[in-house]
């Protein structure tokens, strides 16, 4: 695969140019070479690293992070079918959901898009997730981490309930718990017994990356 196509793919993502990114991905797909597709996925991951750094440095804003995620989704929908099973090693499984009583999903979806692009397998439980579903999903999927999102102060007690239930089911020491959302703080995470608080999707993904290599 010509490195110029990979560069074009990476740069178009960094310039938020959907059309060129899709065009570059299509030209890679046409070659029908699984190694080339792997290289392309690597280029996308490299670009996303830079996107994340720009966001954390305050150079890029949430809207740019979201649109970069949309471009990645379009590109990956072309590349993924050509990846051989097991060609890309998963960085680990993460179960994610918005707590019971809370129907907001923007923050959760941004995190999912970003963490998925960083190589994590995501089990998305959706919104308004009752305690039992979180616990059942941890038991079933044996994830590296459980991520809970919560926008509302009126539902923040759900996080403590899930953590208590994990303890009750002897699952707490088998999974890391990370939480995020407008209602939450680092102190809240500590008080509720979570392992980490993510103020944004990029930081959350970075934290889970560290867990995956430790």
């Amino acid at each position, binding site marked *: 695969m010509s490195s110029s196509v990979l560069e074009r793919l990476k740069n178009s993502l960094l310039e938020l140019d959907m059309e060129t990114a899709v065009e570059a991905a299509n030209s890679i797909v046409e070659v029908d070479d699984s190694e080339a597709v792997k290289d392309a996925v690597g280029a996308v991951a490299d670009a996303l690293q830079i996107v994340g750094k720009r966001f954390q440095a*305050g150079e890029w804003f949430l809207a740019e992070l979201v649109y970069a995620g949309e471009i990645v989704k379009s590109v990956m929908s072309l590349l993924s079918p050509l990846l051989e099973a097991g060609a890309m090693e998963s960085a680990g499984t993460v179960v994610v959901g918005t707590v019971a009583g809370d129907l907001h999903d923007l923050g959760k979806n941004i995190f999912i898009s970003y963490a998925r692009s960083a190589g994590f397998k995501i089990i998305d439980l959706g919104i308004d997730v009752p305690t039992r579903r979180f616990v059942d999903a941890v038991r079933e999927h044996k994830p590296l981490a459980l991520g809970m999102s919560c926008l509302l102060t009126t539902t923040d007690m759900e996080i403590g309930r899930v953590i208590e239930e994990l303890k009750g089911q002897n699952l707490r020491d088998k999974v890391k718990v990370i939480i995020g959302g407008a209602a939450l703080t680092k102190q809240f995470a500590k008080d509720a017994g979570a392992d980490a608080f993510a103020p944004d999707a990029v930081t959350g993904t970075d934290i889970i990356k560290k867990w995956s290599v430790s």
Partner: protein
Amino acid sequence: MDFKERILTAMNHEEPDRVPLMGLIAEPATSNRILGKQQVDFGSMLRNSELWNDLKGIMSSSWPELLYANFADALEAAIKLCFDANWAIYTRMQMVEAPKSRPGLFCHDMWGRAWEMRADEHGNVVMNYVGGVCSTEEEWNAWAERTKPLHDEHIKNVSEHHRKLADNYGDRILPIGYAGTGIFENTWQSMGFENFCRFVYQKPDFVKKVVAFQTDLYLRHLNAMMESGIEVVMGGDDFGHKTGLLVRPELIEKLFGDSYRRFSEYVHRQNKKLLWHSCGKIYALLNKLVEWGFDGLVTLEPTADMELGEVREQVGHKLVLVGNLDVSYLLVRGTKEEVEDAVRKAIKDAARGGGYILAQSHSHSLVDPMRLKWMIDAAHKYGKYPL
């Protein structure tokens, strides 16, 4: 000095007799507890199919009356706690068929958002934004055409709602007319944030059209409030999230800046004041708020690192600052000492020379009236001018 003079003096960046207090009481749960009224168990109503249908019927036929009663109670509760001002809101919700899998009542508001209304575990009403009504330009065009009569009716009700509140409570408290979420939120929330981001890059003319539509509607809403005799009006757009802005400041300026200037000019031409609410970490936009002509900023969310002292240092007395008392912990579970300390710090950081109105940073049903009272008592104790 009476409540009105106190608020308006502070809004002119002069020192009143003491730091004024604004309430953000809106939830029936809070008003009922303050007024000693029986709580309505909304949860039981939702679980009972007969009551469910009654509720739907009442909400469809008597929405203006329900909302008036809600804010009449909110103002009465704010008066009882000795607030100088409290916000008052009129919005319109239209019941729609709920998806089968959902337990709540579904509504569309007049700005193009879909909401699910349900009960929390205490039986209180909770409104959750669940998405935009439209996800394509065609859907949006059809929605705008279809809802035109609803908008006309809404504007008429806005005026009546605020006039009645001002007539019945204006001699005891200053009602601050909140026009609800503004053109930034109404634009992206009517289509969803992912769609909005995509349209900004792929269909910029469509986004401009939506902004123009929302701007005209918002101006009509502001006008209706001012016609009703409201002295201080308020708009709001959540520009920030936990760690920064949702959208690049240059893009906000490009898409919305002229509209915001129009709002300020329009309100000022009628010798009224315009406050603007925003959640989130918005330091990067403070100078723009000044440039757009807003008189003040409401909320200053402490859990998004908004520090009153830092904001004052950045904008000086070009903005009136309103809020900053935490509602995630302090006014829900904090101790009396913690509430007093937070009040003293807020006054120390922002109230010198006027230009600060002490208030909770936001409103939800778990904000504790007793802690609100502690906040008010502390403000009376430590907020006397000269400081």
